[in-house]
C-alpha cells in the first residue's frame, strides 16, 4: 500500500554526489576513465624509466608539495613539439613521492579524434580537458590532475621563445580548483624546451597533413619517424608551494577578477622559478 502514498521518500536519499560514486571492481584492469593499468605499467617500466633515469636524468625538488591525500590541481609550463614534460612529472611523483599517486593528464579534445593516438592517450591516463571531467576528478574522486594552462600555444612556440610563458588562458584552471576546493600546485620544468626544440612552423604542410601543427625540429621531418626522438637535455622539475583555494570566501569563482589575479600570480611564480633555474644552469645537457 506504500505506492499510493507518493509523499513517502525512500530511505537512501543523499545529496552528496560522492556518496554515489561507482564501487571499484577489483577484477578490472581498465578504469572508468579508460586508463589501462597494464599498458600504463608497461610504458612506465620501460620508456618512462629510461627517459627519467638515463636520458633526461631528472632532478626533482619540492615533491612534498604534492599532497599525499585529496584532490590537487598541478599546473606546469609546457614545451616541445611532442611534450615530454607530462610524462616526466607523472614519473617524478611515482619515483620520489612517499605515497606515489596516479596523475590524470588533461589533454585537448582533438586527441579524441585521432585514431590510435586517442586510444593510447586515454590508456596512459589522458582525460579530455572538459570542466566537468576536471571537476569530477578533483572534487568527487579526489584525484591529482595535471593541466597546462598555456595549452597548444606552448607546444607550437619556437625555440627562440623558450622559457617565456604564454598566456594562461582565461584562468579556467583556477576556477576548476576553486569549485572543487582543492589546492593548486605550480610546477616549473626546465629541459623540455631543449629536448625537442621547434625552429619553424610550416602552415602549408600543417593544412595538408591535418596535424595540429607541422614543426621543423632538429630531427623532423627529414628523419621521418625518428623525428619523434628527444635530445638528451638535462631535466629539472621544481614543485612549488601549493596555493590554497578553499579559504577565498564563498563561491570565489564568481569573482572573475580574483580568478584572473590568482592565475596571474601562479604564472608569475612559475616564470620566476624558470628564470632562476635557467640562470643557475651551466649546461643544457649536463645541468
Amino acid at each position, binding site marked *: 500500500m*506504500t*505506492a499510493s502514498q507518493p509523499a513517502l521518500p525512500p530511505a537512501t536519499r543523499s545529496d552528496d554526489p560522492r*556518496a554515489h560514486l561507482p564501487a571499484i571492481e577489483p577484477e*578490472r584492469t581498465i578504469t*572508468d576513465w*579508460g586508463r589501462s593499468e597494464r599498458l600504463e605499467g608497461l610504458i612506465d617500466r620501460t620508456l618512462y624509466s629510461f627517459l627519467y633515469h638515463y636520458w633526461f636524468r631528472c632532478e626533482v625538488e619540492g615533491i612534498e608539495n604534492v599532497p599525499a591525500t585529496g584532490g590537487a590541481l598541478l599546473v606546469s609550463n609546457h614545451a616541445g613539439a611532442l611534450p615530454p614534460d607530462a610524462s616526466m612529472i607523472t614519473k617524478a611523483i611515482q619515483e620520489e613521492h612517499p605515497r606515489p599517486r596516479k596523475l590524470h593528464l588533461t589533454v585537448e579534445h582533438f586527441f579524441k579524434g585521432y*585514431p590510435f593516438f586517442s586510444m593510447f592517450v586515454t590508456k596512459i591516463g589522458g582525460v579530455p580537458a*572538459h570542466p566537468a*571531467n576536471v571537476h569530477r576528478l578533483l572534487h568527487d574522486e579526489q584525484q591529482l590532475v595535471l593541466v597546462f594552462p598555456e595549452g597548444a600555444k606552448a607546444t607550437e612556440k619556437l625555440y627562440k621563445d623558450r622559457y617565456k610563458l604564454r598566456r594562461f588562458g582565461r584562468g579556467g584552471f583556477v576556477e576548476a580548483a576553486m569549485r572543487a576546493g582543492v589546492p593548486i600546485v605550480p610546477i616549473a620544468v626546465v629541459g623540455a624546451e631543449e629536448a625537442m626544440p621547434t625552429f619553424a612552423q610550416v602552415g602549408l604542410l600543417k593544412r595538408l597533413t591535418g596535424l595540429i601543427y607541422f614543426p621543423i625540429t632538429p630531427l623532423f621531418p627529414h628523419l621521418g619517424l625518428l623525428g619523434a626522438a628527444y635530445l638528451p637535455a638535462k631535466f629539472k622539475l621544481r614543485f612549488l608551494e601549493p596555493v590554497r583555494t578553499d579559504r577565498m570566501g564563498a563561491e570565489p569563482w564568481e569573482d572573475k577578477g580574483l580568478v584572473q589575479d590568482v592565475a596571474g600570480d601562479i604564472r608569475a611564480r612559475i616564470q620566476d622559478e624558470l628564470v632562476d633555474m635557467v640562470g643557475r644552469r651551466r649546461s643544457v645537457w649536463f645541468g
Partner: protein
Amino acid sequence: MSGKRVLVTGLSSYWGGRLAQALERDPGVDVIVGVSPQDPTCELTRTEYVRVGTQHALLERIVRAAAIDTVIDTRMIVDSAAATPKAAHENNVVGTMNILAACGGPESPVRKVVFKSSAHYYGCERDDPAYFTEAMRRPHPPRTLLEKDIVEAERAVRAFAERNGDVTVTVLRFANGLGPDIATSHMALLSLPAIPSILGFDPRYQFIHEDDIAGVLEHAALDELPGAYNAAGDGVLALSEIASLLGKPLAPVLPPWGTGIAASALRRAGIRIPPELLQQLRYGRALDNRKLKAAGYAFRATSRETVQAFAEHLRTRGLRARDGEGYQYEREVEEFLRWSPAVRGDDRLRLGRLSRDQLAELARALESLPEARPVRLAPRGTESGSTLRTGSPSSSGGAADPEPAADP
C-alpha cells in the same frame, strides 16, 4: 484510499511488458491499462490491453474514461535498425505529441508522466565530457535522424512539464540495454564471432541490464522523480574490455576515415551498424547515473556484470534451444480467462488477489478504526474472505488466521 491507475504505452515492447508484470504484483496499483499497436509479448494477468494506432491519436479518450493518473511511456524507438526512419519519426515525434496532448488539459486526471528516452539524446562527439549529467545539453546539433527525433520528443516533454506544473514529469535516459530477452543493434554486433570496431579507437561503453531497465521504470512509476534522470549501470568499459569479457576478438574492419562508406559496404554483407552506433564506436559515451542513485534506486548489475551475464547467455544459447514456444497473445483466450464465469479458482486471472500478509494488515487496520465503524465490519470481513477463497483455495487455511483477529 484508492490505488494508482496506470497506463503503459508500448505494452508490446519488452520493457512495457516487464513493467506491466511488475505493476501487477503491486497491490497499490488498482488499474493497469496497456496500449500498443502490436499484441503483448508476455503473459499478463490483470493488465487490460487496448490496441491503438501508431500515432496514439485516441489515447485521450482512454485516459479520461479510465481516470488514469499515471502514464508511463515506454514506446520510444531508440534503435534505428528497429524501424524505418519514417515509422520511427511517426512513433517518436507524432506519437509523443499525441500522448502528451492526452495527458494535458485542464481537466486531465493525469498527475504523473514517465517518459522513456535514450542516451542518444546526448549524442556522441569529440568534445563530449567523459560523463554526461542530466543538466548538460548536447554540444552539437543531432547528426542522425533518430537523434533528431529523440531531441524533438524530449523538447515536447519539457514544454509539457513547463505548462503543467502540477504533473510530475520524469524523463529517463537509458544507456544501451543488454540482456537475454531483448534484441538491439548492439546485441547483434556483440553476438558476432568477432566484434567490429573502428581502427585506432577503443571507445568507452556503458550498459544497463534489462532487469534494471524494468526496475528503473517501476521505480519512476511508484516514486516521485521530477526531472530528467540518466539510467546506466555503474562502471564504464572499454570496447576491448567488452570483447575480452565475451571471449571474442576485436575486428577493426572499419577504417577511421570513410567509416560511413565502409559501414554501408558491411551492410551489404549482412552486418548492420546504424549511424548512431558508428558515432559511439568512435567516441564512446558514458552517463553519470548518480542522480538516479541519489533518488533511491539501487542498480542490480554494473556494466561489467551486465556484459558477463550476456556472455553467459551467448555461450548457453545453443543448449537452451526452445523448450516450448514463447508466449503468444490471443485475445479470445485472454478475455475468456479474465471475464468468463466458467473459469474457477486458480485458473481465473483475479484482480487484486490478497496475500496472507496483506490480509493481516487489513485486519489490523480495521481493528484500529474508531468505535463507530465496527458495525460494517462483519459484511466487509466475509466479503474479503470470500474473494480470497475463490482467488486461492489452497491457502484458505492461511486466510482463516487473520479473521478471528478481525472480529473480536
